[in-house]
């Protein structure tokens, strides 16, 4: 048998469940979900292929982190072998707190998770993408944080004999007071699933020039993305649009790099692109060694000409 017997899953939003179930079923015979919400949401989890749903009724005036104590107690009682959480900022904190209570560490930002039925190993990037680290969980609980685009299998069939188990909420020993919630008027962009992506880097000299690359992206029907400095230093594009070890990880059909030198921290995010195309003025830029098709040219003169001929 090359699967563990059972795996738990948890995600901040219900939309995360189908991918988690399908990925978890590759590793475990059965998959159970921990859900904070109501019976409708629990039923959806059964529909998505979970065998059991541990349902914690949503309480008023709480944040998701306030359910940690309840989930910690549930883990101590049921002793799951593997618990996969979909990465968000909240689940990163929650996973860390669950791990501390179970005296273990989380394997985070997993690029590959596997088991031989006994041991569970996870792979993730370290040193800004310079290396992949393989880690092996101990015999107890294995906690794994998995991001977007890692589990991409087909949806699992619904489990007909699924079961909903209601779990009593345990009041957390400490709590912060929720003062306010302000939705971010951010862009809803999911680069991880984009098939065509145009990326910009430092070769773009000023904010107005981003339009050049945007026009190309639009003409190609591609998403626009960038390196970290363009989003975090310059704020020319939304943070959701930067690619790299701390940003989005892509698997597009092609990545079209405009004015990108090819630093490893960025390139790890696009190494899985089927094809890499690049334009850069410096012929010694590392990007050309990492490209299928490259053009050494000033992007300010080459891009408009290219657009004309497209």
């Amino acid at each position, binding site marked *: 048998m090359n699967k563990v017997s059972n795996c738990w899953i948890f995600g901040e939003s219900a939309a995360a469940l189908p991918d988690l179930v399908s990925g978890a079923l590759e590793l475990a015979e059965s998959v159970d979900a921990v859900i904070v919400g109501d019976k409708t949401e629990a039923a959806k989890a059964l529909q998505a292929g979970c065998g059991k749903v541990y349902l914690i009724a949503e309480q008023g005036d709480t*944040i998701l982190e306030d359910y940690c104590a309840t989930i910690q107690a549930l883990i101590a009682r049921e002793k799951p072998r593997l618990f996969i959480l979909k990465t*968000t*900022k*909240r689940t990163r*904190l929650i*996973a*860390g707190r669950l*791990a*501390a*209570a179970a005296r*273990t*560490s*989380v394997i*985070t*930002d997993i690029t590959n998770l596997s088991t031989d039925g006994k041991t569970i190993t996870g792979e993730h990037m*370290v*040193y*800004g993408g*310079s*290396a*992949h*680290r*393989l*880690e*092996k*969980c*101990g015999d*107890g609980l294995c906690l794994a944080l998995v991001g977007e685009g890692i589990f991409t299998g087909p949806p699992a069939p619904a489990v007909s004999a699924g079961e909903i188990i209601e779990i009593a909420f345990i009041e957390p020993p*400490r709590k*912060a*007071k929720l003062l*306010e*919630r302000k*939705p*971010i008027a*951010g862009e809803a962009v999911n680069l991880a699933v984009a098939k065509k992506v145009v990326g910009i880097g430092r070769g773009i000299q000023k904010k107005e020039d981003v339009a050049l690359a945007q026009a190309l992206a639009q003409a*190609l029907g591609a998403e626009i993305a960038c390196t970290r400095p363009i989003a*975090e230093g310059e704020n020319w594009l939304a943070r959701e649009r930067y690619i790299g*070890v701390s940003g989005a990880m892509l698997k597009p059909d*092609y990545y079209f790099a405009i004015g990108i030198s090819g630093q490893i*921290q960025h390139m*790890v995010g696009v*190494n899985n692109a089927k094809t*890499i*195309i690049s334009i850069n003025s410096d012929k010694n830029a590392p990007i*050309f*060694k*990492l*490209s*299928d*098709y490259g*053009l*050494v*040219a000033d992007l300010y*003169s*080459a891009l408009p*000409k*290219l657009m004309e*001929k*497209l």
Partner: protein
Amino acid sequence: MNVIACYKIVPEEQDIMVKSDRTLDTSKAELKLGQYDLPAIEAAVNAVQESGGKVSLLSAGGKEIDNSKLIKGALSRGPDDLYLIIDPAIKEADANQTAAVLAAAARKIGFDLIICGEGSSDIYAMQVGAQLGEQLGVNVFNAVKNIKPQNGAIVIERSLEQEIEVLEAPLPAVISVTTDINLPRIPQLKEILAAGKKPVTKWGLSELGVTVANPVEVVSTLAPECKERKQIILEGDSDDIIDSFLQNIRKEL
């Protein structure tokens, strides 16, 4: 309010060499303060400036962290003193064990608030803050982009995927701050000179009564296998070149 800011000494990633067997050689890499820890130190200094109190720095690692240039580099950023936990075993400690070492030290130092960076710049698992707070049994939050001390509590803003969340958390607490919480200072000569006179306390693991035994085992750390790329590169922006380039890429678009 007594604040502890944590930092990690990491190798400069640009200096890391890949050996022929794909293992990494960090021996020639210069050591530096983790880039995500600088905003944590700055935030601690700013918080105490507002509320009064003391800022201590805390770092754990192998003997390489006991380096006068690195120590001055950290203390010149405004804190009052520094605690170093030194043991070769800490170098390979995972998040759970690193947090256990820091927790033991923090209990001994005493604190109202501990500030960590978003993650270490080498491993970047973003887990030590969460583990540290839970192990200490205090309030713990990540993704903090604003801190306001307020009679025995802190009001924090968390920058989450879909929302900004404002919380009032009673102290003691542990928080991890984002890189955009502030612009870390560039220490001036005067601050660097003053840093040399600030107290530094060094402890070993035995003085804290902890040992390091990782629950998660590192099997290997290898540079990724490079995908073979065609590397068909053209040079110039004449019509002919652009045409050939377009011909090359058209079937991919």
